[in-house]
């Protein structure tokens, strides 16, 4: 049985939305990072699906770039988190609302 491309699109959209909702709802910074990672991975899934669908390798190549960049991004993000933790002893994003107005 061949799974139609629509299913992949719907699946990755659902994953993406879960990621977005996670970012919206959760307060713990680490979880937020994971949710963003989920969003990026849903994109990876989508790209791979399209790539196979078109028989074109460039989509899969793009996935590698995304993975590399995401890794770099998370590294920076965790570093920033550590920095914040040193100053506030917490990774709850509710502490970060001094800049406003």
């Amino acid at each position, binding site marked *: 049985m061949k799974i139609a491309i629509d299913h992949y699109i719907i699946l990755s959209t659902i994953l993406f939305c879960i990621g*977005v909702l996670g*970012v*919206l*709802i959760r*307060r713990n910074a680490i979880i937020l990072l994971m949710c963003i990672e989920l969003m990026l991975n849903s994109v990876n899934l989508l790209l791979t699906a399209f790539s196979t669908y078109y028989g074109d390798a460039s989509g899969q190549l793009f996935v590698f770039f995304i993975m590399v960049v995401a890794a770099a991004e998370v590294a920076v993000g965790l570093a920033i988190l550590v920095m914040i933790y040193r100053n506030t002893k917490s990774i709850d*994003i*509710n502490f*970060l*609302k*001094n*800049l*406003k*107005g």
Partner: protein
Amino acid sequence: MESLILFIPLLPLIGFAINGILGKNLSKTIVGIIGSGSVLGAFILSVFAFFQVLDAGSFQAVAFKWLEIGSLKVDVGFQIDQLSAMMMMIITGIGFLIHIYSIGYMHEDAGFYKFFAYLNLFIFSMLLLVMGNNYILLFFGWEGVGLCSYLLIGFWYQNAEFGKAARKAFIMNRIGDLGLLLGIFFIFQTFGSVSFNEVFTAASGTGGTVITIICVLLFIGAMGKSAQIPLYTWLPDAMAGPTPVSALIHAATMVTAGIYLVCRSSVLFAASPEASQFIMYIGLFTALFAATIGLKQNDIKKVLAYSTVSQLGFMFVSLGVGAYSTAMFHVTTHAFFKALLFLGSGSVIHAMGGEQDIRKMGGLKKSLPITHITFLIGTLAIAGIPPLSGFISKDEILAKVYYGTGSLPFILLCITAVLTATYMFRLYFLTFLGDFRGTHDQKHHLHESPKTMTIPLIILAILSVIGGFLGTPEWMNHILGTEHILDKYLSLLHNKGIIHPSEIFEYVVLFVSIIVVAIIWFTVKSFYISKKQLPENDEDEKGFAKLLSKKYYIDEIYNTLFVKPIEAISEFTHNFIDKMLVDGGVNLFGSGVKEGGKTLRWLQSGKLEYYIMGMVVGLLLILVFNFIK
């Protein structure tokens, strides 16, 4: 040469910058040298430019492209042709003499450096005005000279009256400027360009209502700057400024900007007989009107001011009959003798310790010999004694009017010439002859002015004598074998036909004027010197004389007709329209802005989750917005 041309306006600008910024810390000598030196440099370059034009014809020098907005293209470019070269010579030449004179005249003044900075700025603006190759640059210079005139009239700003005079000049000029600006807009709309070359190429051979409208609008600009009826009242008041300013700006150069504008646009004016007619009558009445007022003035500078208004009227009459080069001729000679008379009066005022009332002078001949001789030459020149410059140029205007329009304007103009001689002789006799009528202190204080002041006087006196030979009339050509240099030189102007007055006419004018001037001389002399009549106090005058000494009550009439109603209207608009409607509206708008800002500021809560929520909601809205359609 093209690149050197740029230095002509640049030098005074540099002078302005140095004197304006550093002048406070420089000694008066250095300020004077910088101020006069920059103008001298510009003069030397102008002479070069003049000969260049003489040799090779007119040329253009574009400094840089300035603006390019849609089809409006404006270059900062200079057009050096016969007309502008001549104006440049007058501006920088007389400007230089007056700068030298000011070193002596303003020596005691605390604002010495400021004065020179303003003068240099004026020379710069005036040069831009005459050198620009398009109307926008001309307008730029036009506004610049207006500003300098304002600054210099109000130079002694501690005196509130002087400040008021400055404001009056500025406002009256602004009314004229509005006309000029509208004229430029019309030109751009009609011809699609503001550059002289393009406009004049497009305009040659056309005519009709649009051209007339443009010409009248341009002339309204000229009315303001060149003090013609009804916008002339600022010029007599402008005498509040230091005397060198009156000589430079309000006699020799700035007030002739209107003449220059009309000459520059002679293509347009030649295409509109109606506008030319209008100019001629305005000029004619201004000449006559101002001359009658001049008869009864007792302030030495006011007499000269009304005389300037009257002489400018002569020039406009000449422009109105299509004799553009004749008008330029009179501009030149007038610049010589009127600058001379003003500087002479400045020398007198200097000697009298600031006194300007001629009733308190008299007998200055002995104490101020050089001033006296030069002033006498200027007086004779303006009164029309052949072969001084004033006679020749005025004679040419009279001939052009006689052959151009007819007898009534000619007769009126002749009467004006007679009046001119009368008030000038009156001024001369009361000031220099007879007995001294001032105080004892003043008498003790009397002295001839320093060399920096007398040398410019002497140079100008020489120019006033020989200036006329630029445009010798036919009879003189016959006798001396000369030719009319200026007519030939200014052949680019669109003169209306070349009129050769008959020799009989010329000889008649020559002898009649000598006889008439002589009669006036002796009449006035017997009246003021032999009979020792003195002008009465203003209050004691009766009838027509009172009307004259009160300047036909024009200031009062303007006050009632315009100032008072405008004040009333502005009171109304202030209280009702401005305070209630406009302020209300603005406040409403303002509070709307404020409330909107507060609300939006509240949205910026600082909380990350709200921000992301905002972004997601925004994205969804955009998606919905795009797919609902």
